[in-house]
């Protein structure tokens, strides 16, 4: 906020109303008016001004906070409602539970390992045509899901990736088998060359192209002679 400086004015709109107050100082000429002397603002005026603007700022901040709170509350309520809609009602859950308790799940899985298993954690409704599906109250249908599905194998893949990244990932300080074996050749009693001395798999495409061109050239050379 503008400080109370004699002779200096800001372009704030509140200040403009105070330009009527004349000053007697002969300090710097203000650009906007050539003849008029710069306004002088009293201490009180500027103090009240400052206080007012501070209060305003606080008010706006408070208002904003409240607005945000409101928004958040509303959003939370919306989510709750959505969740309620998603979750099956309690009695449906009870029915599900009684029909297939966890232990039964296991024996079922044992018997029909190949075909079905049950995923009791998922509570979303699935409108897929599957065996062992039953229609419950309302628009819900309970069906058993194949355990040997995407979820199980993706978890397995994630677990294997974890081991791979811990043992062979970044920072694991690994080298190649070629280097390990070549070191033995280098430091052994009968010193020998590296195990894979020549990198045989470099420039395969170029080599294949060269081979083709060579064959074509040879063929060309033979045609006039035969």
């Amino acid at each position, binding site marked *: 906020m503008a400080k109370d400086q004699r002779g200096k004015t800001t372009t704030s709109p509140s200040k403009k109303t105070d330009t009527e107050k004349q000053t007697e100082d002969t300090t710097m000429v203000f650009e906007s008016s050539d003849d008029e002397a710069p306004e002088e603002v009293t201490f009180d005026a500027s103090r009240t001004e400052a206080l007012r603007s501070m209060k305003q700022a606080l008010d706006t901040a408070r208002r904003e906070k409240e607005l945000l709170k409101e928004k958040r509350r509303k959003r939370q309520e919306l989510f709750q409602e959505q969740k309620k809609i998603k979750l099956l009602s309690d009695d449906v859950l009870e029915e599900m539970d009684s029909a297939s308790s966890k232990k039964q799940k296991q024996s079922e899985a044992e018997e029909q390992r190949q075909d079905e298993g049950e995923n009791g954690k998922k509570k979303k409704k699935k409108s897929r045509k599957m065996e062992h599906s039953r229609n419950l109250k309302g628009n819900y249908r309970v069906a058993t899901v194949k355990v040997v599905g995407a979820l199980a194998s993706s978890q397995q893949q994630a*677990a294997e990736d974890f081991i791979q990244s811990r043992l062979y990932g970044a920072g694991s300080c690994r*080298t190649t088998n070629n280097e390990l074996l070549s070191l033995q050749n280098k430091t052994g009693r009968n010193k020998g060359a590296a195990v894979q001395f020549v990198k045989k798999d470099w420039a395969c495409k170029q080599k294949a192209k060269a081979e083709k061109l060579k064959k074509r050239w040879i063929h060309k050379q033979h045609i006039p002679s035969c």
Partner: protein
Amino acid sequence: MGEFKVHRVRFFEYMPSPIRAMAFNSRTDRLAVARGDGAVEIFNFADNYFQEKVIPGQDSRAVEALCWVGQRLFSAGLNGEITEYDLENLRPKYTVMAYGGPAWTLSMSTECFLCQVGCEDGTVKMFEILEERIQFQRNHDRQKGRIISLSWHPSGTHIAAGMMGMIRIFETETGSPANKEVVVWSVAFLSDHTVISGDSAGKVQVWDGFTGTLIKTHLITKWDVLALSDQSSLVAGTSEGTVTQFQFLPLIVGQQDKEWVRTRTFKNHSHDVRALAHTETAVVSGGMDTQLVVQPLLDRVEKNTQESALRKIAFPHRSLVCCAKKSGLLLFQFPEHLELWRLGESDGHGKPGDSLPVRKKPEKLIHLKRKGEDHICCSALSPCGGWLAYTTVSSVRLYRLQYNNNSISIKKLPKLPKELCSAHQLCFSSDSSKLFASSKHSSVIVVALGQSECKYLHTLKPKSGYGTTEQPVHLLFVSEDSKWLAAANTGCEIHIYNLNKLKLHCTVPVYSSCPTAIAIHPVTSNLVTVHANQQIFEYSLAQKEYTEWSRKLQKQGLHNLWLERDTPITHISFNPNNQAHIILHDMFMLCIIDQSLPLPDRKTLLYNQMTLRSVPESERLRHSHAFKICKNFQHLLCVSTLEDQALVVVERPLLDIMSQLPAPVRQKKFAT
């Protein structure tokens, strides 16, 4: 002594699978080993470390932990399932879903018949071990991270669980967070409530189980400590390939204060050590370099005996190569596919020891992928090359092959007899008219092969009610004249069937060591058997008794160096031009036994081929003995004879295997 043209075959790109877990059963002296492809192998440590049984793997079964409960074997894997194995029918008995995501670790308490599974979702699930199955009991409190390792306190009252960054003891809540996200790969809970942990920072830490305080830290490697095993002593396996032993000893001799002191370090592996086990006298380790190493502890065995020697088991103790004698074809068995190759040809003639120029290169004819998720258990090729068969734990498949000039066609036989649903071993008769498949209770199913169809003929059964006929058949051989069939099972029984009468002819007297290779001589119809303890027997089928030569061999005894070999004989074949020859091989040598020559006694030089060469020809016969051993070809997977006086030698150098393993750790050494 005959001369052979040798086909040196190096195009079998056999890659063994890395070892992920192991468990030793001290009561039966059996070690169970789980491989990365899901296969489970059983080694009999009391019978010269013979690989008795192999349960083939499956695509999704990534085994992370193995456990014995009495005679039962259980495993838990990253597919979230706990599996019990049927060791008599070589297949999984059943699987139970743990419903916790991937299962990382398994711990069994034999006192209270309970089993704990550590899961990805942070729960430790408890299962009760019942007679025919296991049943879920309850969950422990769910933790924030995945449970990587578990260990029971011997009393069964407490469990230590290693997670990401901490160890938690259930029944007493203590934990110790680490600054970095360290993975506690393994924990061991000792009877005095000490907890030992191995983590990814390379430390082996000793904790007080009651207060949760750290007693001692041993930094043993820059890389991860992946496995721990505690019984008589504590051993830790690292990513460097070292196994470090700790013992509970007083620091100063004579003092009472004991602490865990690092005693020995063994570097027996080139790659990470993932699994460890203790036997009474040795430490067994296995890992990414696919070899099983048995390191005897010198404070438990006598020095300089066979027991105190380091033992490395690299190749399987059964044949993965089938050779079609009449057509020069080779069938290679991989876990997930089969390859059919035609051998190359060469015209040249040369002196012994020469390399002949190859006129026609070997070519791969068929690459057959297996159907379904199960891995291949056993495969066979008929001698004429017209039939191919393979089995998995759930099915048997039979294919007809037809050769027209340069092309080959393969057709699957759609309907097989229902008796042929699963088999452990397969064998074709020499005229390719019959297929023999071993089945439950050591019985053998006989199937007739027609033009493009097969018909069930008969089931050959051993005498039930006596002997261990519950064990699976691991060796099957049919004689060349299709008169005799020999079937050996892992209970050390060998049954001989008369195929003309289709019934049991006799059972060879049971020898205490398991047979590793059997064969019937084409001319004399004698059964030759070699056992895990390197003993050789010859049994006359017509007379139902051991032959004269066999008795002579037993009386004289085999040479010491022969008995000290540490890899078993996996294949026996015969020389079509000399009926006194028996051709055997193990991983490191090829041996031709000439029955017409005298047997070596203990003082004779066993490996005498080099010295014989330096002696003039007229003198050689005087110095020769029956065992002619050749070490020119390494490392052998199969040696077989063809009809045209040629030997086929399938080599897979260990160097070739090692160059294709996953990356080892980089060790900065001075001047490299």
